[in-house]
């Protein structure tokens, strides 16, 4: 109990220090800038605000990235230069091929379903009186960590033989309908889908909230004008709502794609990549911490980074194009 209380206390302290620290930093900066001549203040202020961030990003992001790049050309103990050997392995080994295939599956299915469901729900709840309740319920999984959610779903997917009581929700339903219980996490026909379903469950709430905000920003007059002109709701959805929140959809989809590329926690907790469920990030973890092969782990990290960069770039370019129009 005291252990628990001390954890609560630590958390509260961390929030207080973290938030207070940031506030204090900005107030302090503003105070210091106040001493500068009036003319210089506008020039210095942006750097004062962005400086700490740049410094922290440099230490915690840029340096490790460059170091990882360096390690990816060294052997497993980071002692000898091995050229492109780690990359060759990453691109040719059967384990990595399975991982690449699965990540593609994650990207396609998770993005399609999270964004699709999020959009449908956002449109539908926009028209009902209990909108906030419905949205809260769907948003709720976002409050659970990936690991926590995976543990919950572990119970949902639990398998027991047909002749004993089922403890897994899904197999309890299946057997209640006179079906045979299925090994959701070990049956290669369904296990990848079972894992991705957890991801969708976690991401849909996020997509819904952002898309819902987008829908709310569409001026009422436009929708009313469309209705007056006799457009069906279906047509309004496809030809008014979707184009008008296009950029929001793109941002949400990008975020989900990146999350799908980084998929790790769910796979690690539920299957650890067994039975054909390996993903890139889980393989990276295995190479790094289970097999102690720093070179390969770094090579995988670099490839993952390279895969994410174009998506990020597309996103930023789109954002800039939009700003230009505005």
């Amino acid at each position, binding site marked *: 109990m005291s252990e628990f209380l001390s*954890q609560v206390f630590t*958390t509260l302290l*961390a*929030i207080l220090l*973290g*938030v207070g*620290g*940031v*506030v204090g930093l*900005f107030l302090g900066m503003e105070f210091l800038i106040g001493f500068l001549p009036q003319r210089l203040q506008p020039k210095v202020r942006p750097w004062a*605000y962005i400086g700490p961030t740049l410094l922290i990003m440099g230490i915690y992001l840029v340096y490790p990235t460059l170091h990882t790049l360096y390690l990816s050309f060294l052997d497993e*103990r980071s002692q000898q230069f091995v050229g492109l050997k780690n990359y060759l*392995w990453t691109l040719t080994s*059967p*384990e990595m091929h399975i991982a690449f295939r699965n990540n593609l599956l994650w990207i396609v299915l998770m993005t399609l379903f999270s964004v699709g469901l999020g959009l449908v729900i956002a449109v539908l709840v926009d028209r009902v009186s209990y909108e906030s309740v419905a949205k809260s319920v769907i948003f709720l999984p976002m409050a659970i*960590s990936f*690991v926590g959610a995976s543990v919950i779903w572990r119970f949902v997917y*639990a*398998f*027991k*033989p047909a002749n*004993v009581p089922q403890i897994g929700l899904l197999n309890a339903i299946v057997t209640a309908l006179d079906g045979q*219980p*299925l*090994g959701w*996490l*070990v*049956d*290669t026909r369904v296990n990848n889908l079972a894992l991705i379903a957890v991801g969708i469950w976690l991401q849909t709430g996020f997509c819904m909230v952002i898309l819902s905000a987008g829908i709310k920003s569409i001026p009422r007059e436009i929708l009313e004008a469309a209705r007056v002109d006799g457009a069906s709701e279906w047509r309004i959805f496809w030809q008014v709502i979707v184009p008008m929140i296009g950029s929001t959809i793109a941002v949400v989809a990008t975020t989900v794609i990146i999350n799908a590329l980084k998929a790790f926690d769910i796979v*690690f*907790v539920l*299957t*650890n*990549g*067994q*039975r054909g469920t390996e993903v890139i990030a889980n393989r990276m973890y*295995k190479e790094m*911490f*289970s*097999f*102690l*092969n720093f070179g390969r782990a770094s090579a995988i990290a670099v490839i993952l980074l390279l895969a994410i960069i174009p998506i990020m770039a597309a996103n930023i370019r789109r954002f800039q194009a939009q700003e230009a129009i505005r």
Partner: protein
Amino acid sequence: MARRMYWILLTATVVAGLLLSSCAPQTVTVTVPVEKQVTVERTVEVTVPVPTSRGVVTVLGVWGGSEFEAFAASVEPFTKETGIGMAFETSREQATVLVTRVQAGNPPDIAILPQPGLLVDLAKMGALVPLENIVDMDQLKKDYSQAWIDLGSYDGHLYGIWFKGALKSLVWYNPKAFQEKGYQVPTTWDEMIALSDRIVADGGTPWCIGLESGAASGWPGTDWIEDIMLRTAGPEVYDQWVNHEIPWTDSAVKRAWELFGQIARNEQYVWGGTTGVLSTNFGDSPRPLFDTPPGCYMHRQASFITGFFPEGVTAEDYDVFAFPSIDPQWGVPALGAGDVVVMLNDTPEARAFIQYLASPRPHEIWAARGGFISPHRGVDPNAYPDELTRKQAQILASAEVFRFDGSDLMPAAVGAGSFWTGVMDYVGGKDLDAVLQAIEKSAQDAYK
């Protein structure tokens, strides 16, 4: 302006909050399962002042719950005598934490490793302190058989003292259920198969096997195959296999897998069919032994499994027989495992701690609490709480042919990687040749 300032602050607050909350779970996994300085508090109780210079020895292990309590009790006399406390840290992801801390230059003084493979890895990294000048080698050679000393050594140096042993070549059964049906304990593989067929004919399920073990799923199958390998090919070929001097596609290796498959892939032989084998957690898997009527009749697992038996099961409900001989030429060898104590910081406290753990006393204290057998030959047999444990300890300390769990000796990419995956895939129905070729490919790459 004030409004803008407000927005900046609000954004900053939210961002900081998000950052913190996203960081929190990561820190939790690494540092929360820390049992803090339990023995240090005890020192305070007996009012022995703890000199700051030689206060605490930090230990990183995988033991939690009752295992940690038993270990803490074993260390208590040491703390009382020397005034040195122990700060024991538990991590389920020990290898991860240890490697990270070694790289950060902040290793614990002592680590207790459940696998010699990690000992070799750490020794290669130069993270371990050789123990030849720290423990009395002559005494150690009396206390441990050469097999155990070799297992704690790398490249001519002794790096580890074996503390807790486990015997793996055991088949657990419910004697009452056996008696009721008139089943006899099998002494050969053929008898065991004949018994399995008879149980199936009687409408029962002979075996309970569970391969699921979270991130380590598949390992119970590796024990099966190793045990079979020792009995069909003998210890020398077993060593060659472990050291990858014969390929995985060798007929001797293939035969061991086939015999494992004869049981594990037979839908009628195993509780819940092959899906049950793949999905059932190893710790839950023996439970059907104690159902009425029994869900299964036999369960092959190491000595530790009694800790996982359901509540209410007493010593009369279970018994054990040695995993039987297959090829009479190789008899009944013992497959085992254990926990090895290694030193990462050469401090006087750590030295005293290692010396203490090499003596019989802490072994006896834990032995008396049950669920523990020691490879230490100096341990008084009467320290064990019951006949069953004593029997196992005796087999472990005296087995003529003893081999360590092979998957723990292989490079992690094989022993904790492709071997596990291979077991899961094979039981899942994948073609054996394809499975063995995949493991062979990773082995060619991992052994250098």
